[in-house]
């Protein structure tokens, strides 16, 4: 396998980013109130591709918008007209800068559910149109545990182009997919090499990247055996421990709204006089009304049952159906939780109550 691998420095990377932004529809973390959200950017100054993981919201809304317009309607005396619409998904090619690996990996997990019984064409179009450029983390965040889950973080192809900070100011640029290779060609990689902004990496580079990964993997405080957790959690649906660990959850839904893999939604209408728009927006299974049925029956009437559903969906049901955990270990839920509940801690706490 011929590995195309390039090396540059801080200045070369800045020029590369500037070229990307000027030539493409680019999305990158933009700071507001101390929190980064992915927004359309027109200059590198306006964004921070190295936004810290703890302060960055997921880029999931670029694929599964927080609110997507799915229909417009007009109804008056002359009749009713309905138009299916999703303006956003008609967008052309896009590039995302500064998406972390866990966030990009979450899309691969989501692909399975979006290609299951119903093919979500809007999601597919957004996925196909997007090139993901991701800076590899140098160090694990406080709540990160991505290396403890069921995929190979080191050789991941979740991002199209990986950017790795080597030692001595060297920065490696590594296309991980065909899409990434083609994108680098489009971005005149040949010319950059002749300009001496980029060099073709020598044979020591793969070793340097490996060392970077090893240092990163060694920085994790949180480690678990996901197979053991999956096996244990699948046995304890009736465990009273769920009531104990969920006691301090305030059902605020923040965890689900920031989660890069949660994909539940609700449908709502915005109506002004004779016209209206139908939205598909995020919802959370922690909401009391989430399972409320017509007629008033609610199969999950109390908090711990809703909480159990969310946890078991992540670590048991999705795994059984699609072969992967619906958690990428990014720690966004823990970072955002107003009462500091850690999914890592509670999952392990519940598992520990199961006899081996």
């Amino acid at each position, binding site marked *: 396998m011929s590995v195309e691998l390039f090396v540059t420095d801080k200045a070369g990377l800045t020029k590369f980013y500037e070229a990307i932004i000027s030539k493409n529809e680019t999305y990158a973390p933009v700071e507001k109130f101390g929190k980064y959200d992915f927004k359309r950017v027109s200059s590198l100054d306006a964004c921070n591709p190295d936004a810290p993981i703890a302060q960055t919201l997921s880029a999931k809304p670029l694929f599964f918008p927080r609110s997507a317009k799915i229909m417009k309607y007009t109804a008056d005396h002359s009749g009713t007209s309905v138009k299916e619409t999703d303006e956003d998904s008609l967008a052309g090619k896009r590039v995302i800068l500064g998406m972390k690996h866990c966030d990009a990996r979450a899309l691969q997990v989501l692909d399975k559910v979006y290609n299951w019984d119903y093919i979500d064409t809007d999601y597919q179009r957004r996925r196909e149109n997007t090139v993901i450029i991701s800076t590899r983390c140098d160090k694990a965040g406080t709540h990160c545990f991505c290396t403890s889950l069921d995929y190979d973080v080191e050789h991941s192809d979740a991002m199209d182009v990986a950017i790795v900070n080597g030692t001595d100011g060297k920065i490696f640029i590594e296309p991980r997919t065909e899409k990434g290779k083609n994108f680098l060609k489009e971005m005149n990689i040949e010319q950059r090499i002749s300009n001496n902004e980029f060099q073709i990496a020598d044979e020591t580079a793969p070793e340097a990247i490996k060392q970077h990964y090893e240092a990163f993997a060694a920085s994790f405080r949180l480690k678990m055996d996901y197979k053991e957790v999956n096996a244990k959690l699948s046995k304890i649906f009736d465990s009273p421990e769920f009531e104990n660990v969920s006691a301090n959850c305030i059902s*605020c839904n923040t965890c689900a*709204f*920031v989660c890069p893999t949660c994909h539940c939604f609700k449908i709502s209408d915005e109506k002004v006089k004779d016209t209206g728009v139908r939205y598909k927006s*995020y919802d959370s299974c922690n909401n009391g009304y989430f399972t409320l049925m017509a007629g008033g029956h609610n199969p999950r009437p109390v908090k711990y049952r809703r909480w159990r559903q969310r946890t078991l969906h992540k670590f048991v049901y999705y795994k059984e159906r699609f072969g992967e955990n619906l958690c990428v270990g990014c720690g966004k839920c823990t970072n955002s939780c107003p009462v*500091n509940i850690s999914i890592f801690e509670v999952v392990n706490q519940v598992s520990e109550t199961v006899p081996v």
Partner: protein
Amino acid sequence: MDYTNQIREIASKLFAEGKIDVFVGYRMTGFDENQVPALIRDPNEVSKLVFTDKSVFNLTNYLKQDHTRNKRIGLVVKGCDSRALNLLLTESQVKRENLHIVGIPCKGVVDESGNKMQNCIECIFPNPVVFDEMVDGTPTGSEAPSYQVNTDIRNIAAMNLVERRACFEEVFESCIRCNACRHSCPMCYCAKCCIDQETSTLYHGANTTSSAFHALMTWSLHLAGRCVDCRNCEKACPSHLPLHLLHKWNEQVIYENFQEHLAGVHEGDRGAFYKYNMKDPDDFIM
């Protein structure tokens, strides 16, 4: 500020005397230096309790939950928390005889980066206004500043209506409509919240600036004269919205127009909009 030992002693004593079923305090998360609320039912777990300047979350939020309803509760409150508790008592949401309130003479709590929170710097009620016992005996007469208008609010007050709307729209634009602010608010206990009506065409859950504007404005007006500035909402907000702008703005308008009313300061004191006073001005609508 470390009252860990005192809290543990009090909790053990309450369990031993059979006065409570559950003690609501804080414990360490078990993996970092942050704290997580602890609902202790087992007297043997009392040793998990802690209280330091990282004990941020307003625990009165837990009084409205199913598993604490109609239980005898030991509850740790700081100054701001006790004001929320006062209002919940006045509004008949909790029974006083079910509560054993442990007061903390609060010296201010810190945010994620270890800095004292802004509301703590401006706090005028560091000592609980309602309690059964204080961790340090009687409340110490720590000098609290008098009520002052927050700088941000002074800027908003100086704006004209168009600028003010633009200022709030700028805030609401980043709202992701998760409603975490509402859920984390101790004063929000409606079984069915007006901003959460899934069939409503006005307060629908779509993530648009207009939807956020409607929802957050309505929410803040329901809290006008009831917000105790504990900032649970800001801590809960995943987008870090400065929600205090809404609440402090309301607080200031009410303070100036309703005989210096501040929420939950006196036992039995109803919110500004719950009582009629001949001196109330009638020359404006909020």
